[in-house]
């Protein structure tokens, strides 16, 4: 029996009068790759932000890795993010004036102690051993996304969150990134939550849930 890494009950998020996420009950077993699909404004990014400790719910309960996120202070959530979560953004969000290796070391710095050799190794794992000293502006979109993946995995997170990580990539780069994530997950055994509106990308997961207007309307288990 695999234990649950994420448990939500009646999880809700309101922004003023707008209910971005209506009460959701969700259990994600440890090690699962969960794809979250839905149209724009369906609440999928909101769900990911709540699970990643980037936002606070309006109602309901939310436990991730045994931590009650509602009980954590601002600094407690920051600690949770650096120790437990790795995030891959659609827009990469790399610090423009730092090199690829320094961008990876940034996550190490906030987590514990920067280790350049380890950061280099992480970039080599994502196939960027030859681009260590390049700044984001000197990298292609796919390469930037791989730096973002290296930064997300450098602290060995239990939970990897992807917010449309291939949204800005062409098909070839998308496949490359997804294969890389699959390999890394096999090695690191982390849980993946991938927000996407691309059915092809969602199909890389074990299970897909569908959100519509903040409501979990359907879920689908992928055939292995």
């Amino acid at each position, binding site marked *: 029996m695999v234990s649950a890494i994420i448990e939500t009950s009646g999880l809700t998020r309101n922004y003023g009068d707008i209910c971005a996420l209506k009460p959701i009950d969700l259990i994600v077993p440890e090690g699962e790759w969960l794809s979250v699909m839905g149209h724009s404004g369906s609440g999928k990014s909101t769900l990911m932000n709540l699970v990643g400790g980037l936002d606070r719910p309006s109602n309901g309960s939310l436990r991730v890795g045994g931590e009650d996120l509602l009980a954590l202070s601002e600094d407690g959530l*920051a600690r949770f993010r650096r120790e437990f979560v790795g995030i891959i953004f659609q827009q990469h*969000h790399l*610090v423009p004036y730092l090199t690829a290796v320094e961008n990876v070391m*940034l996550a190490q*710095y906030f987590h514990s102690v920067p280790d350049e050799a380890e950061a280099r190794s992480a970039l080599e794992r994502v196939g960027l051993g030859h681009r260590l000293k390049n700044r984001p502006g000197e990298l292609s979109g796919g390469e930037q996304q791989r730096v973002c993946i290296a930064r997300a995995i450098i602290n060995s997170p239990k939970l990897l969150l992807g917010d449309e990580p291939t949204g800005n990539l062409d098909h070839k780069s998308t496949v490359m990134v997804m294969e890389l994530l699959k390999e890394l997950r096999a090695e690191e055994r982390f849980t993946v939550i991938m927000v996407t509106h691309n059915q092809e990308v969602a199909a890389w997961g074990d299970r897909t849930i569908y959100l519509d207007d903040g409501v979990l309307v359907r879920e689908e288990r992928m055939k292995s």
Partner: protein
Amino acid sequence: MLFRILKNSFLKRPKAVFLVFLSIAMGAAVATAFLGIAGEVSHKMALELRSYGANILLEPSAVEGGGFLREEDLPKIKTVFWKYNITGFTPYLFGIAEFSAGGKKERGVVSGTWFARQLEVPGEDPSVQGIKGIAPWWEVEGRWPEAADESIVGAALAKRLNVVPGGDVTTTVRGRTQQLRIVGVVTTGGYEEEQLFAPLVTVQSLLQQQGKISRVLVSALTVPMDDFGKKDPATMSKDEYEKWYCTAYVTSVAKNVEEVMAGSRAKPIWQIASAEGALLKKLNSVMLLLTVLALGASATAVSTSLMASMAERSPEIALMKAVGADRLQISAIFVGETLIISVAGGIVGYLLGDQLAGIISRTVFNSPISSPLWLFPTAIISAFAVAIAGSVAPLRRALLIEPVRVLKG
């Protein structure tokens, strides 16, 4: 890593960094200049204020019989602890005499004094002491006496006796007569205009009081009186007394002088001392206020620059927060940046301020200025203070950034 972040942040945003640096440097420069000249201005103003007249009066102590002081003790005034603060002194010997000139007769006060006496004290630099030094506002029509039988006469007395420079006044005291040549008529605006002033030795001889004096007026550079300075030395502890004695209060300088003049009692001339003290205190307050205002303006400029920079950097801050930076780590980066800039700004500000102080001193006081060493740490601390005060609002804004909103889509 912090060093790499700071270094790259500086190199990437030279314009923003330069603006913050400039604001801090200007604040430190103005603080250095104002504080630098504040000390100097106090000193120069104190010297200027000595033209108000003497601020310490030495008289025979009533306890000692209230007779006379000894002229032979006068050189000792130039050997006391506060000798460098004593800018001048002059002795007086008063007597009642009968003046006659051109058929007119009148009883009045004859004052024996030093006009400009060369004083040689073993082990000390030679100096010139006398009325000319401590009462520069005296206007003499004619010239100052140089010989033993020369004198100057107060304007009111001269008018009544109808004497002018070049005339003679016969001065008689208890049957002893001295013919005095009038070489000047003095206008002071005070009681001195009713007297006749002759060399001390002449009046001592006339009054048969050789080697004796009635009082000494002392002009000394002093610091404004504060609550501690006003305390009665008799009630002070040993440490307090030492501190009081070693501070140039008018009371402690007076005490210092009193100790070397046998049988004397020294009293501050409060209307002079208080006016000087109040003026110097106000001057220092104005300089301090200007410094604080300049630093406040710099801190505002730093805050504005950092606010603009913070808006530009919000994605970077949001990202740092998203990958797990807590408030302390975010603060360390931004405060670290600002403090590094403030060290550079403080050094440059000190150098600029030193030059500025020199320009102000030359323009206003016509004299150069040398910055005291303590101004350097003061400039650095001022720069830190400006940097920290200017960072508060931007840092608060940075800490309130929500990654979810900034990193959206």
